[in-house]
């Protein structure tokens, strides 16, 4: 076991996979940084420090520093993937899928199906997502609900350094397109990472806290929030299952349903906007398949259906918090 930061886990996994398989290539804006400047290549090394040193090790053919052209970045990843490479494309901010959505939604997400199963598209699109930095409406969003709504994409949201390693390795080795969402507020968090060729299969949620009273389903940054609430309430004798989805597509329905069948109470905590979201999807799943187990109406702890605001007061009010999650648990337990 090694202790490392979430961002180090990203970099180390990419490095190891590029070393292991020469078909793995990386591309994106400023992933090398400093190209065409007095400072020279690697003057930056990626703004999230998730690609530092890759250019020096693997060279310009495999570490492709691109102009600010998100459509062409994802499009090129598609072309590389259809030509036998395993590209890892970086979108500097998840919000920029807006610029490149055709290549994600109409192209990579559909190749295998519309080509009758005869193509592989082993591309990973990594993107930094999430609020908490007062980065305002276009640099703060959580886009996994949007991406999960698109057939043909796998959507992965690691919450710990260990999950980064296990899930990113699986993503790079997967023959299908994977959206890999890294929360900005998690990059500097630390954790133990297993040694060796550690992988985590997609579609297997992680039960991070176990309890009998309430099921809390969540992912990404919110996992830590929910764990803190669960730990606090455990001291009062209130038991919460905290389920870290890890992947929203595929979705581990069984983990959710098994838990709700015991607790009878579902809370979904998520950072994406509420309408047509992963939260409404899970509430609907439980209503459809575990209705008779429910002891109370399900609760969603989410931002309002607005853009992410800028000012500190507004952003704090917008985001789910441990207080809001705790209030939700107390509310669902108090029902009737």
């Amino acid at each position, binding site marked *: 076991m090694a202790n490392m930061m979430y961002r180090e886990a990203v970099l180390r996994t990419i490095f190891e996979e590029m070393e292991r398989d020469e078909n793995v290539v990386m591309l994106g804006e400023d992933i090398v940084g400093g190209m065409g400047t007095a400072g020279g290549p690697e003057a930056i090394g990626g703004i999230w420090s998730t690609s530092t040193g890759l250019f020096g090790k693997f060279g310009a053919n495999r570490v492709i520093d*691109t102009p600010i052209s998100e459509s062409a970045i994802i*499009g090129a990843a598609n*072309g590389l993937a*259809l*030509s036998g490479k395993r590209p890892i494309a970086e979108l500097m901010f998840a919000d920029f899928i807006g610029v490149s959505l055709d290549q994600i939604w109409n192209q990579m997400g559909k190749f295998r199906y519309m*080509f009758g199963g005869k193509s592989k598209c082993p591309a990973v699109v990594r993107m930094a997502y999430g609020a908490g930095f007062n980065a305002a409406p276009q640099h703060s969003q959580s886009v996994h609900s949007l991406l999960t709504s698109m057939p*043909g994409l796998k959507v992965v949201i690691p919450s710990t350094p260990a999950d980064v390693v296990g899930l990113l390795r699986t993503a790079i080795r997967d023959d299908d397109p994977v959206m890999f969402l890294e929360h900005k507020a998690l990059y500097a968090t630390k954790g133990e990472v297993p040694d060796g060729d550690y992988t985590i299969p997609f579609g297997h949620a992680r039960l991070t806290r176990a309890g009998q009273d309430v099921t809390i389903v969540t992912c990404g940054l919110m996992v830590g929030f929910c764990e803190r609430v669960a730990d606090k309430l455990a001291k009062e004798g209130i038991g919460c299952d905290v389920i870290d989805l890890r992947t929203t597509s595929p979705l581990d329905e069984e983990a959710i349903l098994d838990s709700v069948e015991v607790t009878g109470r579902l809370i979904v905590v998520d950072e994406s906007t509420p309408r047509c979201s992963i939260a409404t999807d899970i509430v609907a799943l439980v209503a459809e398949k575990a209705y008779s187990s429910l002891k109370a109406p399900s609760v969603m702890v989410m931002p309002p259906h607005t853009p992410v605001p800028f000012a500190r007061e507004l952003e704090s009010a917008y985001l789910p918090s441990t207080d809001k999650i705790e209030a939700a648990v107390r509310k669902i337990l108090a029902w009737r």
Partner: protein
Amino acid sequence: MQLSRDVLLRAYRQMKVIREFEERLHTEIMTGEIAGFTHLYCGQEAVAVGVCEHLDSVDKIISTHRGHGHCIAKGCDVPTMMKEIWGSSEGTCKGKGGSMHIADLDHGMLGANGIVGGGAPIAVGAAMAAKIDGKGKVSIAFSGDGACNQGTTFEAMNMAVVTKAPCIFVFENNHYSEHTGFDYAVGTNLDIASRAEAFGMKVWRGNGVDFFSVHETMREVLEYVRAGNGPAAVEFDTERFFGHFEGDPQRYRGEGELDRIRDERDCLKIFREKVTQAKLLEGADLDAVDADVMSLIEASVEGARAAPRPTAEDVLTDVYISY
């Protein structure tokens, strides 16, 4: 450059297959048997064939919504394509893609593409892969005068220049983006190649209704790109004999325009005239090809009609994740 008899016969045959494939579809679509949208390539055959005759199966192309010609020219199996257009489970894409999405990765055909401008960025990625492999392979982005106005195409051209990717942007200017004239929609004074040139590429221009012009131009372009000089672009002036899609009433055409282009700008007629006048081939040689092609098309249509249909269960296959 003098082309051999075999090369000439093969090129003529490829153009004729495309022509008759499309003409037959035009007729068959009237019967209502074929579902969905179909965009015919008739009139532009010299471009697809003049380009693809230079390529190996390891070279990649990406096509457009008007993609049948590129697919045939790149070596996709014609009867299987016909089955796809009929929606058969034995089609190129098992009936899941249809006319606009025929792809055959084994032949380096990365797909027709229903999104105008969707293909050029993908071609750049294929070119990056070719550059990594370092074996002189190239990729071709076929685009029309419609796609030349898409930002994705601009991004792709700049990205190819910046990364020195061996990508060739082939612009087929048929003078119509859907139902709108080139004079109106392309701002660069009736010239697409100059736009590519502004991105820092070497460009060529050719006559897209003359196989020999296309073939000779592409010989130069490919020599340049395969030598590691980075991307290039070429604009071919060509003609679209049918509407944007089948069923398009084409009210935007001028008086007698369709007759005139069929008469004066038909790449098959021009080819026949040139090779027979130069005594490179006999009229009888070409007639024999014609007859052979007609039976291929007939057999393809019969095969497509009789081919098995997909079932409701097939909706759920070839997915990334089963739900």
